[in-house]
Structures are given as structure tokens and as C-alpha cells.
């Protein structure tokens, strides 16, 4: 990109900040079974009384992105209205036999695998159309997964805000500190989306970062 174009782009982003959009489109991303839909359900239930989608122990339960518009979050005097997009879990491989290990019949496992690949394509395409991301990481797992690295890299390259929800702190083997030391450049809130632990701190951070 040439110098003039870059200066023009930066002026445009300053003007955008001055006349900020009232609604930010925020994607909830992460690997399968990190707790994205559980978190989306918690946010939607706390602020609208509804739910977003079904959750399951079988990976790739969410195979279509779902958007909930106009969710207003108020915390510590800040107020933000968000369109929340719950995305299918990102992965680089889909093996139908993994679903069979969870008790699915072969045909159903293959159908789920096919739908999961389509869901991942959808999730990747949504990256181009967001104002920010809540990246849900499982605190019981290695934080340097390729999905985490790729999502963070994309947000950094686009200079879009990113908030890490370090999930599953209700589990004994949980280690949010491992994630914090892996990605110290981004804000992180340890939570349990399932139990609601520390969720008010997450709302404060959401209002602060995406408002």
C-alpha cells in the first residue's frame, strides 16, 4: 500500500473513531468444545433472557454461525450494544471417526463431518465482517493451538480489538496463567461460562473494549 493510501486510511480510521458506530459486530471464536455457545448463551440470557443455541460434548455441535442483534451490555457506567455472532469451532481437520467414538452411527457421523466443514468455512468468512472478536480458549488445554494463533494473527493484522475469554476455570486442571503468558499482548478474563464465575468482569471488559 502506498504512503498516501496509508495516511488516507489512518485519517479515515480517526474519523470512524470520532463518529463511532453505535453497534459493534463481535464474533465469538475458538476451537471446538472451548465453550463458545455456552458463553454466547450466558451473554444472551443475562442481557435479553433468551438463548443462542444447543450445546453438546460431541465436537462441532454448532455447525452454522448464528447472529443475535442488538444485545446491550451495561457495566461500570459503560454501555455497549453488540451484534453477537456465535461461530462454529475452527479446526484444520475433521475426522468422522471421532464422532463415531462419541456414539454416532457412521452415516450420521459423515453427515456431521460434512456440515462441520461447511461451518468452518462460514466461520472463516465471518472474520472479514467483524468489528472485534472474543476468543474463547479452554484453560485446560495447550494455548498455542493453530486456531488460536491464526485468529489472533488475523485480528492483529487487521488491528481489530480482541478479548480472550479463558474458559473452564471451574475445572481443577485449569490454568489461565498459561494462556496469559502465551499471549500477554491481549486482555484476558478467566471465566467459567458454564458456572458464571467472573462473568461480571468479562462484561466490564466487553463494555470497555468494544464500546
Amino acid at each position, binding site marked *: 500500500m502506498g504512503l498516501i493510501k496509508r495516511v488516507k486510511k489512518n485519517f479515515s480510521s480517526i474519523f470512524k473513531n470520532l463518529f463511532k458506530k453505535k453497534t459493534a459486530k463481535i464474533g465469538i471464536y475458538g476451537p471446538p468444545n472451548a465453550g463458545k455457545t455456552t458463553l454466547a448463551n450466558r451473554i444472551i440470557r443475562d442481557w435479553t433472557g433468551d438463548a443462542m443455541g444447543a450445546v453438546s460434548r460431541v465436537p462441532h455441535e454448532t455447525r452454522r454461525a448464528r447472529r443475535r442483534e442488538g444485545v446491550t451490555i451495561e457495566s461500570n457506567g459503560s454501555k455497549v450494544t453488540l451484534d453477537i455472532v456465535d461461530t462454529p469451532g475452527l479446526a*484444520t481437520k*475433521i475426522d468422522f471417526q471421532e464422532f463415531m467414538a462419541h456414539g454416532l452411527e457412521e452415516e450420521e457421523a459423515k453427515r456431521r463431518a460434512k456440515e462441520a*466443514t461447511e461451518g468452518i468455512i462460514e466461520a472463516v468468512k465471518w472474520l472479514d465482517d467483524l468489528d472485534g472478536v472474543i476468543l474463547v480458549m479452554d484453560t485446560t488445554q495447550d494455548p*498455542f*493451538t493453530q486456531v488460536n494463533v491464526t485468529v489472533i494473527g488475523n485480528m492483529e493484522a*487487521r488491528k481489530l480489538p480482541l478479548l480472550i475469554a479463558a474458559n473452564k476455570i471451574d475445572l481443577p486442571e485449569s490454568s489461565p496463567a498459561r494462556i496469559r503468558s502465551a499471549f500477554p499482548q491481549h486482555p484476558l478474563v478467566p471465566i467459567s461460562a458454564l458456572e458464571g464465575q467472573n462473568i461480571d468482569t468479562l462484561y466490564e471488559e466487553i463494555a470497555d473494549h468494544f464500546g
Partner: protein
Amino acid sequence: MDLISEEKMAGMTAMEKIRLILDGVKKGKIIVLERGLTPSEEAKLIEMTMTEITPEDFPGIEIESYPSSQNQKLIDRIFRKPVVRTRLTVIGPANQLKTLRKDRDLISALVSSQ
């Protein structure tokens, strides 16, 4: 195993890089990229991989790269030039390459034959 230099990749478009990687991996090769892919190319690679997965033959890829870093030069920060420093990346068939451990500067993987 193919070890691909930064110079070779520099002259290729994003789609050419992704095609080169996927064609190699589908033949059972492990691909090592000296300078990796940009984050948007990685996202595109995931997307293309999903279109090529078949239940019996190709379950997808295992890809491991070190986290990229942003250019910290003052002049680039003033003009907000988005220079991403990508790093070594290993890609292989999901049924042959398995990551054992990974941290900021070390990737430990197991490679097996089909």
C-alpha cells in the same frame, strides 16, 4: 518432506501457495515453510482445506506455526503499516503428522507413515 525457502514463496500469490501446500500434503508430504504464511493466508488455507476433506481419503491437515509478530519500527507504527513477521510453519496430512507439544519457540511433532 519438502522444505520450501522464503524466496520461493515470496514470488507466489496466496492461492498459488495454498495450492502448492494442499497438493503436496494430499500426496502425503510434510511441508516445511521457512517463513510461513500470513494470518490471512492461514485462514484461507483452513477454508480451502475444508473444501477438500473427504471422509475416507483426506481428513484435513495438521498445521503448526509459531505466533507471528508485528513490526515494531517507529516509522511503521506512525503510519500504522501492518507488517506481520511470519515464522517457520510445518504442515502435513492430519493422519500422518501429530503435534506433541508446542510453545512460542518450539514445535515437537510425531510423523508417521500411512
